[in-house]
């Protein structure tokens, strides 16, 4: 297979941890034979912050602060996993307005996360314009999220029992407008990218991931669905209001592709973003016809979660994020284990990269849509 193997030994190269193409501090140790990769080894841990250990000495409100930082593009979903786990152990009923607002925010945040990758992946392939388009659309959604929560990236808006604050007056109308704007803008980005011959030449048939590998490595999320693995927790194990949204006649759809290559992953991400916007619209419609009611619960000043263990798992933007909570009846968890999507999605690179050209490496890695903070925790 080696194209340039005439009298040359294999070369070991370091890609990262400070390499622009690895967007973050992921390090890859690759062995190349000429232009072709013989093996690739992701070296992780440069961003390990010991989140799980820190959780053990923080109460449930303080955990939310830390938990929304491991995947900084999906802060809301991360918070959600923590509070859902705590609420399950407490056996707490959540007000209906809180459930639907959480669903709405989770979908808006999924859109935000997808837009980053829709902008940054073309950037890694050399197209700089889609980034500006994507970040322009992000701004519309970030504005409504900041108005509600006060944060642009780390919302810190979930609380055990509901949400921190109620909607400001007229906020739902502004969400509707933002969603409509983003939907219009998304069509522009899609038009720029998906029919572009250069992008197709660099992604179609590149980095094909088989369903067998996906199952072996526990790959989830849009990457798995782009290979035809039809799994989405929002439909398969519904939490929040997803049971209704993904049920009969609901706007929720599980977007799948069969190609399994980088192009299929990108196109899966596009359609999923459209679908998230549709779900957000349905949530707004539902919230605006809801009667007056609370959005959170009165909590005791010291919240103690009863003894027991539970596993809450949410469909994050990048895949399944699990939160295994063991409580011994204290105000801090005894153990809180994270199962993060990016960690598994990165693991499969070992199998995917060998045999490919060095120039395709960036194309494959970018299409795996990961956040290094989510890998290293």
């Amino acid at each position, binding site marked *: 297979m080696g194209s340039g193997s005439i009298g040359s030994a294999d070369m070991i190269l370091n890609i990262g941890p400070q390499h622009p193409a690895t967007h973050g501090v992921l390090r890859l140790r690759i062995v190349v034979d000429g232009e072709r990769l013989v093996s690739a080894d992701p070296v992780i841990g440069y961003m390990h912050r010991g989140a799980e250990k820190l959780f053990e000495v923080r109460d449930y409100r303080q955990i939310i*602060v830390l938990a929304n930082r491991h995947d900084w593009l999906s802060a809301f979903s991360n918070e959600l996993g923590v509070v859902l786990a705590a609420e399950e152990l407490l056996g707490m009923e959540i007000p209906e307005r809180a459930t639907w607002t959480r669903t709405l925010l989770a979908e808006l945040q999924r859109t935000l996360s997808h837009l980053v990758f829709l902008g940054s992946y073309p950037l890694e392939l050399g197209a700089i314009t889609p980034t500006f388009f994507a970040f322009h659309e992000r701004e519309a959604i970030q504005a409504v999220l900041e108005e509600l929560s006060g944060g642009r990236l780390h919302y810190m808006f979930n609380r055990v029992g509901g949400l921190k604050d109620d909607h400001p007056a007229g906020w739902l109308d502004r969400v509707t407008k933002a969603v409509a704007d983003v939907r219009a803008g998304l069509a522009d980005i899609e038009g720029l990218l998906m029919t572009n011959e250069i992008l197709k030449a660099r992604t179609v048939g590149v980095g094909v991931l088989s369903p067998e590998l996906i199952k072996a490595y526990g790959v989830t999320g849009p990457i798995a669905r782009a290979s035809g693995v039809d799994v989405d927790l929002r439909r398969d194990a519904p939490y929040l209001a997803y049971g209704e949204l993904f049920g009969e006649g609901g706007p929720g759809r599980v977007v799948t592709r069969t190609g399994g290559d980088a192009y299929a992953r990108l196109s899966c991400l596009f359609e999923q973003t459209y679908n998230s916007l549709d779900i957000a619209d349905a949530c707004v419609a539902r919230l605006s016809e809801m009667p007056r009611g609370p959005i959170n619960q009165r909590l005791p000043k010291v919240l103690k979660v009863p003894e027991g263990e539970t596993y809450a798992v949410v469909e994050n933007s990048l895949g399944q994020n699990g939160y295994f909570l063991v409580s011994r009846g204290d105000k801090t968890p005894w153990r809180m284990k994270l199962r993060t999507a990016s960690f598994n999605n990165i693991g499969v690179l070992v199998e995917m990269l060998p045999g490919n050209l060095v120039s395709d490496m960036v194309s494959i890695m970018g299409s795996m849509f990961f956040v290094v903070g989510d890998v290293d925790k």
Partner: protein
Amino acid sequence: MSERGFLPGVFKGLGITMKTMARPAVTHEYPDARPDLPPRSRGVIALVEENCTSCMLCARECPDWCIYIEGHKETIPATTPGGRERQRNVLDRFAIDYALCMYCGICVEVCPFDALYWSPQFEYAEFDIQDLLHEKERLGQWVQTVPVPPALDERAPDAAEVVSANKPPRVPRPAAAAGDATGAVSAAGEAPVRRERPAGGDRPARAERPAPEAAAGAPTDATTDAATPATRDAEPAAPPEPPEPAVPAEPPVAPEEETS
């Protein structure tokens, strides 16, 4: 595709570029054009020093311990002859290290005396990281930039502040009202007495509370509440005791905080 030497996608891209060129710029020229930040924006924490009792709740709840509080106790001599001396906490130092702060807002949330507020102001970058430690004077200056909180959605329940403001004012208890002139004085000093209730205060008074339906019915018609206390004063047989969530919640918490 590219073998044909003809790239329709490139022309499509150029078309979108042309379309966008006609649009006005979406970027703000920041130092000249200020961003219009929503009132909930978490920019900087302002301290209303007068409200702070140096209770340390914020410093303890802070997930990365970036609040520094120092204080001392001062004894206030009795105001009346034979009266009791009182102790008061005096705040000497209140500082927030913005180099450590994670902007989570837990301190603002836990403050029981409304001494901390968020302000969307964000222009306090420094060349030296040590200058990010804001002492109470600097934190006090931010108070001017604290915005009015936004009006809530019509489907939202009343804010806690509105509910407590609409509660009928406290009226003297029957025991005090029936007593002589000194009874009025003890009724005025009701608050400190109540705080000492767990130590064996006026337990019998609690039994005289009206039935819960009378208490629950009081805050529902907020508009008439302001007028009612005067008429209720006239009938001392059933004094309306307002439902008080804060006081019953206190006794189970106090020992917890001491042990932790």
